[in-house]
């Protein structure tokens, strides 16, 4: 049986601009016929990856770069440093080149601007490699004196020991699709539960020196766009695919609990220093299902309005709970387990069908639910 973990969150942001479009405005989308605030999935996934790096350590997080050959060559040099014959850069570069051409991945000489240091060859796109893959590849190259590996050997090196973020968010290798990894986690674009349009913040900045001379007027003027909203955020983890990508059932459960934690506590850092928008979701609802994953976004198709002493957060929590309840009773989608975490009375509408818990306690509860039945 296959399990999926769905995570839903209501997350209120103060005036901020965490994810911008090409004009500098907060991203938006029309839903239910009205404009809403939107934060793209790519933006939030990046915040989650950075959070992984902090909480799990850099070893568990992959490098996403065109300069993979440099990373391998660096590692080769590091590995041979202990011996009395450290490989020079040329030899290490040639070995790394052999590895990637052996794998069918094309490298081209990097264009270097005047005054810049020479760099190793690059791939034509961002390639995702885990620290373990880089290390294994470098060791193999040292062992075989930098020989070009066969496609089979290259595959064993570059398609094994994926980092958590590669296993979750996938990998795309344009010229060698054999190395592609299909994502096991889906993250939806976060979308406002209510109507909102960006506001223009007109600002003036004072010139200190000019002001000291008692001259009036602004040193400069400008506008910034910002918005404040309550977002519905959704992501789903497919445990069986994650287990296949990581090659281990326990690792999949640990990765899932780490993901839940980072999903809840991470934030895209756009304009962080201008707005200090450091909030966490006020309500999180988690479901573990053996049927299909279910987004509850359509609970907010009619935009939420605060009215009659009910705040936007409260109205949002009630709508989310009623949508979840109806999917259970009217469609028969009953989850294996469900949990709610929230501030104040926001979890109240969930008490009859979900276990109310706390974030510190959640990890253990998830572990026991996810390992109770073998997700394979």
């Amino acid at each position, binding site marked *: 049986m296959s399990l999926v973990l769905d995570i839903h969150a209501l997350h209120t942001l103060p005036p901020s601009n965490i994810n911008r479009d090409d004009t500098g405005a907060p991203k938006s989308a029309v839903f239910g016929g009205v404009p809403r605030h939107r934060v793209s999935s790519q933006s939030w996934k990046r915040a989650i990856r950075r959070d992984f790096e902090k909480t799990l350590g850099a070893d568990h997080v992959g490098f996403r770069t065109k300069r993979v050959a440099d990373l391998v060559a660096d590692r080769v040099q590091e590995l041979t440093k202990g011996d009395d014959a450290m490989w020079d850069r040329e030899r290490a570069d040639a070995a790394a080149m052999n590895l990637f051409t052996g794998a069918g991945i094309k490298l081209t000489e990097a264009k270097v601007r005047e005054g810049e240091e020479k760099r190793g060859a690059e791939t034509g796109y961002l390639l995702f490699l885990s620290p373990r893959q880089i290390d294994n590849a470098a060791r193999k190259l040292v062992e075989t004196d930098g020989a070009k590996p066969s496609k089979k050997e290259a595959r064993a090196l570059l398609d094994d020991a994926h980092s958590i973020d590669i296993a979750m968010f996938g990998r795309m290798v344009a010229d060698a699709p054999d190395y592609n990894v299909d994502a096991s986690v889906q993250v939806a*674009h976060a979308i406002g539960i209510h109507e909102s349009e960006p506001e223009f913040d007109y600002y003036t900045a004072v010139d200190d020196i000019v002001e000291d001379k008692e001259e009036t007027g602004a040193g400069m003027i400008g506008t910034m766009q910002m918005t404040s909203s309550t977002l519905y955020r959704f992501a789903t983890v497919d445990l069986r695919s994650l287990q296949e990508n990581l090659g281990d059932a326990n690792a999949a459960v640990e990765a899932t609990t780490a993901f839940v934690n980072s999903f809840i506590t991470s934030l895209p850092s756009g304009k962080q220093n201008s707005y200090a928008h450091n909030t966490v979701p006020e309500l999180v609802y988690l479901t573990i299902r053996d049927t299909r994953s279910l987004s509850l976004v359509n609970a907010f198709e009619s935009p939420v309005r605060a009215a009659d002493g009910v705040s936007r957060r409260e109205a949002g929590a009630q709508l989310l709970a009623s949508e979840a309840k109806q999917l259970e009773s009217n469609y028969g989608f009953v989850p294996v387990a469900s949990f709610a975490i929230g501030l104040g009375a926001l979890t109240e509408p969930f008490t009859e069908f979900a276990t109310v818990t706390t974030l510190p306690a959640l990890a253990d509860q998830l572990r026991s639910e996810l390992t109770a039945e073998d997700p394979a």
Partner: protein
Amino acid sequence: MSATLLLLLKGPMQSWGHTSRYRDRTTASYPTKSGVVGLLAAAEGRRRSAPIEDLARLRFAVRVDQPGSLLHDYQTAQRWQTGGSTSLVSRYYLSDAVFLAAVESPDRELLDGITQSLHSPRFPLFLGRRSCPANADLLQEVHDGDAVDVLRSERWFASEFHRRTRPQQLTLPIFRDALPGEIGDPRQDVPLSFDQTHRRYGWRDVVQDAEGATVENPLGKRKADPFFEEVISA
């Protein structure tokens, strides 16, 4: 007699690319056959390299319940661990759109089997792009009859907001596979293989059904603007 499985495709965002290349990822104005067949294949747990001829052979039709609007998403990809320049990607989505997709087969059991896997799919389902999760009420029933007839008789799924902007009686466009000998708009969205080493798509002719689906709209406006209606139904 043939049977038809209905799928409701509805959400804040969906995206159905059929001519996308490289850094400009476009969307068609209604779902592609390859997108919907891909969704069925994912539900059944078929790998990218698995054969899909049986699914691609199903007759396909789409009804536009709510056309939605085009959304441009501008994305930057940065190499933040090692530094360096930024690449730009444009992705297009349909926001706020609602479609009813129909797949038709003479073999009802085949459709019942697909229904089962859609209820408990092997891979997560999405509306054309992974960041657009499928809606909870995606799976509608299997009906007797051919795709166009079933689409004509099914209720209208548009949001209340959208209903208020439309007249009291209107015709929803239906786009279907051309019949043998019929001429339509050629479109390269019949999946032959989803294998990433040699992804291939065949051509089909798409015809906008002359009749469409006529629905009553008690919430609608009494006076409709024929020009606006012509544009929005196109």
